[in-house]
């Protein structure tokens, strides 16, 4: 069992007294390997956040089971071990920073884990340099930009030495520059550190940068495959109320106009290449 995240028939309903009520997750099964960069997309209310909260044992399944690095989230003694392995960054940067100084905030997770003080110090320096925020160690967080705050939040998670980084719409409240900063940080951690990244997003231009995309709809997994496979299903995605990447959508329009383009163009670079071949 090498998967770092494994879900088997996971169903979850927020109101357990009333099982007939629509479930936020319905029989979700999936497995994610160490080092994968997975994007999860789906329209509002499709269950993305609910799924994410199952990975770090904030929620436990009503039925089915979740294993994180081989530990079942049902095992109540391992809750804190799981939260150390799977770190989560939320949407609103203002509502997840606890302390009044950047480095104190980064220290919060390790402090909760009972790490000795000099080791916490080392981890802060390491985490802040990984997100390129070392210069701001002594700043009050409320004076930082949105992108910087989110990078501090990521550092706060990294200082716990997790194996999985979950970003639940962590770019949603940021301007394009801030989004870029956060995306670059996540990609770099995945490439250079082999961190498993689960990226939840509404921006298809971000999802395109993952290796694999999982599409949720009404609590079910409807598509799960390589980014190219998933985004070539333009019509299905549209039907599910999702955008497709701008380039893919342009390629489809051009195909309708009779141009001989591949259906799975994802990036501007690929588009340029294909157009050049046509000329």
């Amino acid at each position, binding site marked *: 069992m090498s998967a770092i995240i494994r879900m088997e028939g996971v169903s979850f309903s927020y109101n357990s007294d009333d099982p007939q009520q629509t479930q936020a997750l319905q029989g979700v099964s999936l497995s994610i390997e160490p080092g994968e960069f997975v994007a999860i997309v789906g329209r509002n209310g499709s269950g993305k956040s609910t799924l994410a909260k199952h990975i*770090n044992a*904030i929620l436990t399944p009503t039925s089915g089971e979740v294993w994180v690095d081989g530990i079942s989230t049902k095992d109540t003694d391992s809750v*804190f071990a799981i*939260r*150390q392995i799977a*770190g*989560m960054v*939320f949407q*609103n940067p*203002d*509502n*997840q*920073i*606890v*302390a*009044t*100084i950047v*480095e*104190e905030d980064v*220290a*919060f*997770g*390790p*402090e*909760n*884990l*009972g*790490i*000795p*003080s000099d080791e*916490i*110090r080392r981890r*802060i320096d390491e985490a802040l340099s990984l997100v390129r925020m070392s210069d701001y160690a002594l700043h*009050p*967080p*409320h004076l930082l930009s949105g992108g910087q705050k989110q990078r501090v939040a990521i550092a*706060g*998670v990294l200082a*716990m030495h997790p194996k999985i980084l979950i970003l639940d719409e962590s770019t949603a409240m940021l301007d394009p520059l801030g989004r870029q900063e956060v995306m670059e940080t996540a990609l770099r951690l995945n490439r250079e550190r082999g961190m498993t990244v689960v990226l939840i997003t509404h921006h298809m231009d971000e999802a395109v940068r993952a290796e694999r995309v999982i599409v949720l709809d009404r609590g079910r997994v409807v598509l799960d495959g390589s980014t190219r496979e998933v985004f070539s299903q333009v019509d299905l995605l549209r039907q599910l109320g999702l955008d497709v990447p701008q380039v893919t959508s342009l390629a489809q329009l051009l195909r309708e106009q009779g141009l001989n383009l591949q259906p799975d163009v994802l990036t501007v670079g690929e588009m340029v290449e294909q157009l050049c071949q046509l000329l």
Partner: protein
Amino acid sequence: MSILKNVTIGQYYPGDSVVHRLDPRTKLVLSFAFIIVLFLVNGFLPYLWLAALVMVVAQIARVPLKIMLRGLSPLKFIIALTFLLHLFTTRGGTVLWQLGFLRIESNGLAQGAFLAFRLILLVVATSLLTLTTSPIALTDGLERILSPGARFGLPAHELAMMMTIALRFIPTLIEEADKIMRAQLARGADFESGGLIKRAKSLLPLLVPLFVSAFRRADELAMAMEARAYRGGKHRTRLKVLKYTAKDFWAYFLAALAFGIAYFLGRWV
């Protein structure tokens, strides 16, 4: 330009003096002891001695007098009231001044001046504490001082965590209040004219959204703290471990000496 820009919290005056570098516990304990001494001893002479003491510490901390006295301005009304109340009501000694039923007697003057002096010393000494200790150090110190009480059910860690979170969110909430206020000003709201009741009423549309958002923030923050393996004060370590050093022992020693002298001055002189 921000409407609420003048609101500041804490009044830390950063520096690198010995006073700044004392352990926050030392400063908390000694400030508290100072207040007790202030209430234990009577007489102008010991008070002059204590005032001199505060001035010397402020000198060492290199906190300008102007900044020290700034802490008094919100309380000047109360201090004046204390003075006037005692001036006109305390009886005894010779009559100094009389007009109709208003009369000032010498004991009243002495008592009024003395109590005003006490209040001023109280405020100046506690502002010296907050001027030379950062809010984080203060909460850390408080948590450590109170932590023996945890065995008897005193929520030391929780109190400190509440203070930290309050300090963290006050600027955020001020910013938000500012935004809401401006949005409503743009729609013709008026926060500044009218009587007290009218102004209080005009604040209602500000407070309601502010409260709603504060609750949402609290909810999300609790979730984020849980996700970072927070489980209260148990098993928790700290980045900054408080440690007493030689200067703290000197501070305790000198303070004990100074307080002893104050007591002696009040008793026998």
